[in-house]
């Protein structure tokens, strides 16, 4: 470039404009460098044409300002999604349902490079909202946006009650828009129909404390009341995933069970039938069996006892004794079986069979010491003792199964109750709630 070239005269540095309200003379600050269409005078609440150098009055509205106050004051800057945003506008909107007015607040946020985004607040629930860049596809009770399915939550007529500051559209108090919300927590997809124009926006749930942090607000945010339409469930676990994991574990358990069952030798090593007689009971009660051998690895030993008792019992004090080492496993088993009739009909109690598994018995030569006891009124009780080496143990699998099942059920229940409260506020309340809330009995 030659020296004769005058310096480039780029556009002047943009400045926030200070003007005065044509109605009351109060100072009006335009913070959005010309992006605003309308601006509302904070003192007389005239809606002014922000595009007009003279700020022509577009609408005046009456309001009791005492009860409408933005939680984030206009002009406050905060960091949202990594960029600074300034609050430039505020509006209160409301819907009527069953004769009750529900109000929420919307904040217009501005960054000269990133543009406009919005925050909404309803009873302590916040949403970070931006205009959809792509066109969502709505079909009946759902909508699709960026490949995600959103469920219809509610459709209502939202009217604008109160406005303050700047708006990038022609805002008017009293204007009604048909708002339809579709949810896919933590996101909400909304369409607003005003006349023939439809605007789609996408919001993401934010907690009050996040807003307070972002805008460095004093004090604490208002507490969130109830469950909001797109509030993420506190059940952060993916419930379906949990059940899938549970199913996978269950299959694994079954496979393990099958594997161990196949591997188990289930080898009968001893069986013998004895007779318990009263006469014996007066003598030395205990006796020892023949020696049997447990071969192979350290494994389980199952002792089965069968006694054809009826309305009787026999109790057996067992000891499994290693002949080589003297190591003993003591256990007592009762076999009892009772039956009869009463006013409820027939009943039985107990069984004629009993079995017990002793874990981790090393290989070696063993015998049983048995000491039977019974009611002396019955002279003879025959009983059979069966010893099987290396039987699979399934009880532990049952415990593991329950240990996995319990959290899945508890989580599912918590997720279910949360979703129930969410949808009870929608156009599609869960069946039971809609019928019980109708008549407060």
């Amino acid at each position, binding site marked *: 470039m030659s020296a004769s070239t005058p310096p480039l005269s*780029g556009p002047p540095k943009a400045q926030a404009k200070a003007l005065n309200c044509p109605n009351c003379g109060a100072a009006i600050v335009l913070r959005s*460098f010309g992006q605003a269409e309308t601006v509302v005078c904070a003192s007389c609440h005239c809606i002014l044409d922000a595009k007009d150098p003279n700020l022509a009055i577009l609408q005046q509205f009456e309001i009791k300002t005492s009860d409408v106050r933005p939680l984030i004051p206009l002009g406050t800057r905060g960091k949202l999604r990594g960029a600074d945003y300034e609050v430039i506008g505020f509006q209160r909107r409301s819907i009527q349902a069953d004769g009750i007015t529900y109000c929420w607040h919307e904040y217009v946020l501005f960054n000269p490079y990133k543009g406009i985004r919005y925050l909404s607040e309803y009873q302590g629930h916040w949403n970070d909202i931006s205009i959809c860049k792509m066109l969502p596809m709505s079909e009946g009770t759902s909508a699709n946006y960026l490949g995600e399915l959103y469920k219809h939550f509610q459709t209502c007529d939202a009217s604008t009650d109160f406005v303050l500051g700047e708006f990038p559209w022609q805002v008017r108090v009293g204007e009604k828009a048909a708002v339809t919300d579709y949810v896919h927590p933590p996101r909400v997809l909304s369409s607003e129909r005003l006349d023939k124009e439809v605007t789609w926006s996408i919001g993401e749930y934010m907690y009050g404390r996040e807003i307070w942090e972002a805008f460095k607000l004093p004090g604490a945010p208002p507490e969130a009341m109830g469950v909001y339409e797109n509030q993420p469930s506190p059940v952060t676990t993916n419930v379906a995933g949990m059940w899938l994991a549970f199913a996978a574990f269950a299959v694994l358990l079954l496979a393990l069970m099958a594997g161990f069952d196949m591997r188990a030798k289930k080898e009968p090593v001893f069986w013998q039938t004895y007779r318990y007689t009263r006469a014996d009971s007066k003598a030395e009660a205990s006796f020892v069996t023949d020696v049997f051998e447990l071969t192979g690895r350290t494994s389980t030993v199952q002792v089965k006892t069968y006694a054809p008792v009826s309305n009787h019992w026999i109790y057996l004090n067992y000891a499994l004794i290693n002949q080589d080492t003297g190591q003993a496993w003591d256990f007592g088993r009762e076999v009892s079986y009772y039956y009869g009739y009463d006013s409820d009909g027939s009943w039985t109690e107990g069984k004629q069979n009993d079995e017990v598994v002793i874990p981790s018995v090393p290989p070696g030569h063993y015998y049983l010491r048995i000491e039977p006891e019974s009611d002396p009124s019955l002279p003879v009780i025959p009983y059979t003792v069966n010893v099987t080496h290396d039987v699979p143990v399934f009880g532990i699998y049952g415990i593991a199964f329950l240990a996995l099942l319990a959290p899945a059920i508890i989580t599912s229940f918590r997720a279910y109750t949360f979703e129930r409260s969410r949808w009870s506020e929608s156009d599609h309340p869960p069946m039971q709630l809609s019928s019980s809330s109708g008549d407060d009995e």
Partner: protein
Amino acid sequence: MTQPVANCPNCGAKIVFRWSSTVQTVCEFCKSILVRTDVDLKKVGQVADLPPDSSPIQINTEGKYGNKAFVVVGRILYEYDQGGWNEWHVMMNDGTSAWLSDAQSEYALSLSSKAQNLPAPTQVHVGQQFTWNNQPYTVTVITPAHYRGVEGELPFQYWDKTDVTFVDLRTESTKFATLDYSDPEPALYLGEFVQFEDLKLKNLRSFEGW
């Protein structure tokens, strides 16, 4: 780098062309609208003061689209009932030209596309579908707009406009199309919405306090 240089027929200031295919430019000093002829520059009009504008983009802003670098060389400024927007004419480093639009900080990049049998403005209605390059587009908005001015270099003559109609068509993805009825022959632009961050813009305008 050699750039074609000429002088403004109105004020004599040096006119530098950044893009070799420029048809029209605006003198930075006297705001004369100049059209390139075979031999020299001809003044065809005068740009009135452009309205204040909130765009962070300006002439000479540089950026990237995919793996191509670009520089902003011109713009057309429009107004409609919801505000104004800019169509920034950008020159890609491969010599092609494209349009970067910013409407209230929504950025989109589009290219002029050739298509047969474009509909007349009276034949278009919201909800209608068109397919170009195997991509279906749905008409979402028909915007009556008002031409407000030009700046810098443009690939065609564009200066004696008043009311122009634009038809916006969107898809389920970031792709969009615009039908431009500025001229008797409709023009089609196909493009996509882009994220401000992805454009990696440099030499942006500064805003006081930001």
